[in-house]
């Protein structure tokens, strides 16, 4: 079996480790690019949201490279995401290549551990549980890597970019719990910044795919770091996996905080987006909130209204960015520059009035 799955930024490594640990062979498509997006857009319905188009492009490229099994998250509730795999299966079938699409329901962890994975890979449930533990570990490593990278890059952009290939090597090579522990120590040594902190910090919230996939969000963390801003984030594959096992305490905190604006969950991740934004503003004292989501995303558009209310209530500026296939990198950079300029002026004014 040559398995493939959508690329998820740095968290791709965690998924890769998981499948390889179960004894599957992974065929990863090349990093998402304009070409991927074009292939995806061509095979997609016109009005569907961006993650559909990008992941479909990934699958098409992976099938070209010889993959024969496609894993896609599923589980239909209020958000469109749960229905992706029905349409993607049809679109891939039209491309004429032989393949098998395995929908992995997000809301049935027991079926995943005891039926789906053991049957697919021909291993025992104990083995699956062990591999899931490794995946958790690794997702924790990528989460920490991103946090370290964001801080270090904001302080010393060019130097960190030089260190990045080395760090990615470390990240990719760690496969067992002991290796991951060693890699974590080396990463901390490599990317640590001795307690110094950038002047400006913004919180990144929004739809999870757009928060963790660099192509999708125009590498927004890097662009902000170039401007000397540290990006604080909470959601990654680690927290998503925890959430699916009902073990993510930060979710319950977010849900409690979000009640201020949203009394009922509109589906997707709207509650987390709003709750995290409130947490970042009130607890982490960030200078601004950047909200990323795909164009016409239903839950995030509701969250957007709540975030605007948050700006009115607290005065912390929110930059809402919706992405579609026509979003240009240059346009994004200009908006970020203007936003960061405004944040810088605000923080200077605040420090003057404090003195």
């Amino acid at each position: 079996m040559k398995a493939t799955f959508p690329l998820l930024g740095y968290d791709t490594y965690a998924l890769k480790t998981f499948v390889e640990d179960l004894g599957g062979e992974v065929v990863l498509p090349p990093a998402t690019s304009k070409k991927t997006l074009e292939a995806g857009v061509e095979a997609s319905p016109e009005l569907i949201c961006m993650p559909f188009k990008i992941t479909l492009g990934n699958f098409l490229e992976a099938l070209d490279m010889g993959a024969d099994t496609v894993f896609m998250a599923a589980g239909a509730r209020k958000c469109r995401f749960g229905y992706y795999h029905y349409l993607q299966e049809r679109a891939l079938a039209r491309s004429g290549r032989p393949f098998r699409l395995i929908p992995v329901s997000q809301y049935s962890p027991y079926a995943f551990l005891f039926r789906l994975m053991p049957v697919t890979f021909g291993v025992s449930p104990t083995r699956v549980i062990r591999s899931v533990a490794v995946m958790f570990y690794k997702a924790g490593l990528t989460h920490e890597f991103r946090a370290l990278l964001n801080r270090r890059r904001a302080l010393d952009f060019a130097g960190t970019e030089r260190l990045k290939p080395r760090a990615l090597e470390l990240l990719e090579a760690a496969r067992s719990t002991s290796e991951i522990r060693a890699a974590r120590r080396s990463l901390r040594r490599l990317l640590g910044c001795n307690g110094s902190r950038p002047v400006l910090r913004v919180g990144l919230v929004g739809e999870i795919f757009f928060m963790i996939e660099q192509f999708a969000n125009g590498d927004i963390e890097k662009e902000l770091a170039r401007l000397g801003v540290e990006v604080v984030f909470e959601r990654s594959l680690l927290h998503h996996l925890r959430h699916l096992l009902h073990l993510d305490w930060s979710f319950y905190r977010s849900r409690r905080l979000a009640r201020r604006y949203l009394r009922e969950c509109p589906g997707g991740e709207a509650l987390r987006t709003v709750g995290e934004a409130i947490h970042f503003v009130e607890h982490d004292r960030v200078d601004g909130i950047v909200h990323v989501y795909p164009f016409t995303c239903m839950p995030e558009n509701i969250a957007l209204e709540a975030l605007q209310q948050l700006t009115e209530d607290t005065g912390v500026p929110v930059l809402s960015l919706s992405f579609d296939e026509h979003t240009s990198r240059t346009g994004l950079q200009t908006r970020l520059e203007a936003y960061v300029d405004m944040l810088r002026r605000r923080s200077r004014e605040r420090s003057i009035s404090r003195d």
Partner: protein
Amino acid sequence: MRVGIPRALLYYRYGPFWERFLAGLGVEPVVTRRTDKELLQLGLQHVSSEVCLPIKIIAGHIADLKGRVDAVFLPRMVWLEDELYACPKMIGIVDIARMMLGDGTRLIAPSIKRNFLWPHFRAGVEMCGSPLRAARSLARARSLLAGPPVALRLEPGEKRIALIGHFYNIEDDYIGQPIISAFRKQGYRLVTKDELPESVLRGRQGFAKSIRWVFERELYNAFRFLVGSVDGVCVLVSMGCGPDSLIAEFMKEEAGRRGVPFLQLVLDEHTGTAGLVTRIEAFLELSQRRQQLTRAA
């Protein structure tokens, strides 16, 4: 007490029930006027430009009520039996309404989760203070929930088009009426899901079982039921509607497979009526020609 009801979204299904229920409580129901350009413009100022047309319209209605009434009655449908959900925006609009209305106007928003009548009863108690009166008013209004009995009667020889679209789009004066009159002018009979019995609309056969949006499942079932007995299918989708963007794709594929002419009209606030009418006329002409060809063959 004057309680406002926006004439949008769920009003088109439960409106008469709500009005009688509120009147029975001793409060004065104030229903907003039919949607017009002015209300839409008002709505555009209050919600993000990316949401779908019906949400923009209901935002206009809510803004119109602000300051005119003591409270706004806007039940929130979250899910119904069989774990059928409403769409995220329909759930979220209630919170947006709360933020729009601010502290000046009360928002009465019972959350409907499986049970339909109990949240209404609690809201009734909240409005009139008397459980007895709320229960009596609810019992009296209840007969309006079922609506008139439906029977689909298809006359032989008539020209029929299935109009597949959300009830709140079709029945809205601003969105649906120009389209309906364009079809009628050409001598076509429009069949909508209103003429189908509940048992068909709630069916769980085939792909319908996987659809977990309540109104979307109704649309898909209506489409499956009607597609064999009409001359063409017109699907009304509002720009930015998430569920429709998926389900319309399935309908398109199936109509293509069965050789039934298919027209997808995407609506937003910039859609001109003249353009729509032209498209509809062209579509009808094409489907007629196709019929003549198949008859000749």
